[in-house]
């Protein structure tokens, strides 16, 4: 507000002057000369005399570009893109050449300022126009600015991590939950081939992985309420299908990334999104060769990789809240006492009485993984590996058996899902939790538990591929090993479709 008199006219003059400089044929020969002369003009007009005039200028210029897009919606996009691209060129040159050559702070402060201005205008625009919001101007600014600032250039290479961090932070602020009118552009931006390459492949030591995982979590959290409805409206289906494509690229090119962050993703993917969850759980490290799960007499515990601990890049132990609950849990795991801990377990997990949302799913998942990993450490401390004999009769299995028995059907379903989420590629977690779920089936004191275990495994198998290796070997063991008397259960034969499903799955397994 309250721009000084004449400021807007000067800003408009300068902006248009810059665009004509960029578009002139002579500019190609010596672009820096044109920029240098323009910076002099900016100085003469007082734009560079302080933070305030600079901020006003960028706010005006960004708004001008956006207004241009709204005025020219029915024209070919070339016209507005020429203007916006030229503006973005100015931004990138100012960022690159601001401050001392070795001082990154000035450049990054300027970049963050400009990104903040664009974000602010976008969010305000969305409130003003609501369903009339047009994404194309913002989309063009963000993508061209990213491409300009990540070209191969020694000055820009030095600040590549903070530049990418700035963009990730920006994209988090305008995530679909905050800017739903921008959601399709947002997905285009975060899955652009250059963005993916930079953040997942080129940043050394996987420094971009955590930031990218946060963006995917933003996406899953946004989709969740719509996907829970199961019946997907066209706009939701379109975004969902786009998400699947992105996950497929990640599965193919960066399986280790999905492996490392599977836990965080499973926390936010609704339980009924089974194929999408399988996509997260199916990847395995590229240097690993997976044995064929249908190999007759496969000795899982003899596999070379089965003892390896998978990396889980999330502090799941820290997710067990409140701290008093964690303390009691650790006490019970250590001393297998007091027994009252088990009877109070359910109340710690329940958050409401509304059917369908009774339980704290992230807490359930964290509890299961934490207890399981503690169990593995406990077994290993005796120089043993997870088997049916070693996993039973301990505090850890007390907890799992108590949950299986004490929870209602909804809670048990979520509990069993938490276990099934660990049935992935050959590693110690897959091995332990495979034994665990089979043990719970075999030792169940009610057919309901066995039915729900079967339900959880089956629904993950009947969707289209991919299927996690650990899921396959667990189900094969369940249906093949006569110990479990699987085919004698009534729920296997409860309806012709179910019988046919089991026969079909068993046929492909055997």
């Amino acid at each position: 507000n309250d721009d000084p008199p004449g400021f807007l006219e000067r800003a408009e003059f300068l902006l248009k002057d810059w665009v004509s400089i960029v578009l002139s044929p002579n500019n190609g020969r010596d672009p820096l000369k044109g920029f240098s002369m323009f910076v002099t003009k900016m100085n003469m007009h007082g734009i560079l005399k302080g933070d305030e005039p600079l901020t006003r200028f960028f706010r005006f210029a960004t708004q001008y570009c956006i207004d241009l897009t709204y005025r020219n919606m029915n024209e070919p996009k070339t016209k507005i893109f020429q203007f916006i691209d030229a503006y973005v060129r100015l931004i990138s040159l100012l960022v690159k050449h601001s401050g001392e050559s070795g001082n990154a702070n000035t450049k990054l402060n300027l970049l963050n300022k400009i990104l903040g201005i664009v974000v602010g205008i976008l969010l305000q625009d969305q409130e003003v126009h609501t369903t009339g919001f047009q994404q194309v101007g913002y989309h063009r600014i963000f993508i061209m600015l990213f491409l300009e600032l990540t070209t191969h250039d020694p000055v820009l290479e030095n600040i590549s991590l903070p530049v990418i961090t700035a963009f990730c932070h920006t994209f988090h602020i305008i995530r679909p939950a905050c800017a739903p009118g921008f959601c399709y552009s947002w997905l285009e931006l975060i899955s652009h081939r250059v963005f993916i390459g930079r953040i997942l492949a080129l940043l050394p030591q996987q420094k971009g992985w955590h930031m990218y995982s946060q963006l995917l979590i933003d996406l899953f959290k946004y989709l969740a309420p719509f996907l829970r409805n199961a019946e997907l409206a066209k706009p939701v289906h379109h975004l969902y299908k786009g998400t699947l494509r992105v996950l497929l690229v990640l599965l193919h090119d960066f399986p280790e990334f999905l492996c490392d962050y599977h836990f965080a993703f499973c926390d936010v993917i609704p339980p009924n999104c089974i194929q999408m969850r399988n996509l997260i759980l199916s990847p395995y490290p590229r240097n690993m060769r997976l044995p064929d799960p249908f190999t007759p007499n496969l000795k899982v515990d003899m596999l070379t990789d089965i003892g390896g601990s998978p990396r889980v890049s999330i502090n799941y132990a820290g997710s067990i809240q409140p701290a008093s609950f964690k303390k009691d849990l650790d006490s019970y795991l250590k001393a297998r006492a007091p027994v009252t801990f088990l009877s109070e377990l359910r109340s710690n997990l329940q958050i409401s009485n509304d059917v369908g949302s009774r339980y704290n799913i992230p807490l359930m998942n964290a509890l299961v993984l934490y207890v399981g990993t503690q169990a593995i450490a406990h077994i290993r401390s005796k120089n043993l590996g997870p088997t049916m004999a070693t996993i039973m009769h301990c505090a850890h299995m007390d907890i799992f058996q108590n949950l299986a028995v004490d929870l209602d059907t909804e809670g048990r379903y979520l509990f069993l899902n938490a276990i099934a989420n660990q049935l992935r590629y050959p590693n110690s977690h897959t091995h332990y939790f495979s034994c665990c779920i089979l043990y719970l089936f075999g030792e169940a004191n009610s057919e309901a538990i066995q039915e729900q275990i079967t339900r959880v495994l089956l629904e993950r198998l009947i969707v289209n591929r991919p299927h996690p290796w650990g899921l396959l070997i667990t189900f094969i063991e369940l249906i093949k090993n006569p110990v479990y008397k699987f085919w004698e259960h009534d729920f296997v034969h409860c309806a012709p479709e179910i019988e046919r499903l089991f026969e079909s799955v068993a046929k492909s397994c055997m």
Partner: protein
Amino acid sequence: KLQKEHQIQFQRMEAAYYHLPTPSDSERLRPYLQRQPVQTPPHFPQQ
């Protein structure tokens, strides 16, 4: 049932669905050989 907040999100997403981004929105301008997408016969190469 969707909460009110999600209903609003859906409305805005639905409006955006009718003017989706196109591939050229993320590509440098090519004045010489611009994209002109068209539905080609199915027996033509599709990739």
